[in-house]
């Protein structure tokens, strides 16, 4: 079973408000991914980190989304100005390796964001 911790489980915001969610990866996992899962079960990769460094992020996250994985602190994903279309389940995953035979990603329970 995954030991990735995500908080809060549910988040309700008004349009234009900030929304911040946190993720504690499994102990010893240096690689962290963030995905957005919409109500149609479509997944969108947002950003990933190796240790504290951003590996890649999509254009969406470069504009309204910000994320970080500081040393000895939870990773976080923040939406600066929430929009209705941001309502989704935000999933954090961690893995031991980037590529290769042991690169499976372990997911947290997700943060369900509702933007009213």
């Amino acid at each position, binding site marked *: *079973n*995954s030991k*990735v911790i*995500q908080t809060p489980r549910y988040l309700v915001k008004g349009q234009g408000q900030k929304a911040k969610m946190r993720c504690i990866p499994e102990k010893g996992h240096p*690689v962290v*991914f963030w*995905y957005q899962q919409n109500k149609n*079960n*479509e*997944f969108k*990769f947002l950003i*990933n980190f190796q240790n504290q460094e951003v*590996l*890649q992020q999509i254009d969406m996250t470069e504009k309204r989304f910000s994320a970080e994985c500081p040393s000895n602190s939870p990773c976080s994903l923040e939406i600066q100005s929430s929009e209705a279309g941001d309502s989704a389940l935000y*999933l954090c*995953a961690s893995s031991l390796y*980037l*590529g*290769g*035979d042991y*690169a*499976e*990603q*372990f*997911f*947290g*329970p*997700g943060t*369900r964001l509702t933007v009213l």
Partner: protein
Amino acid sequence: TQTVSQSDAHVTVFEGDSVELRCNYSYGGSIYLSWYIQHHGRGLQFLLKYYSGNPVVQGVNGFEAEFSKSDSSFHLRKASVHWSDSAVYFCAVSVNTGNYKYVFGAGTRLKVIA
């Protein structure tokens, strides 16, 4: 760009039946294949993976999957399902270069009738 296709949106079986959930992908390079299960309102739980070696891989709770390069497939199977297997199953592919992100299929909702 790799794509993942799960041809069956819904599968319904009776408890004790066998089941196969289909996954086909399009990519010719080195890839990493996984299956995940998602119960209602929860995160994704890892079932199994294939990267190299024996094309038949065993996972948790009696699940297994078989990789076929010729068919570009990675179908998931279980010999005898239990009502608790009712969930949505996602096939995921990652390319072993670049950002290593997962590309997910659309999911197959499995309903097991007790």
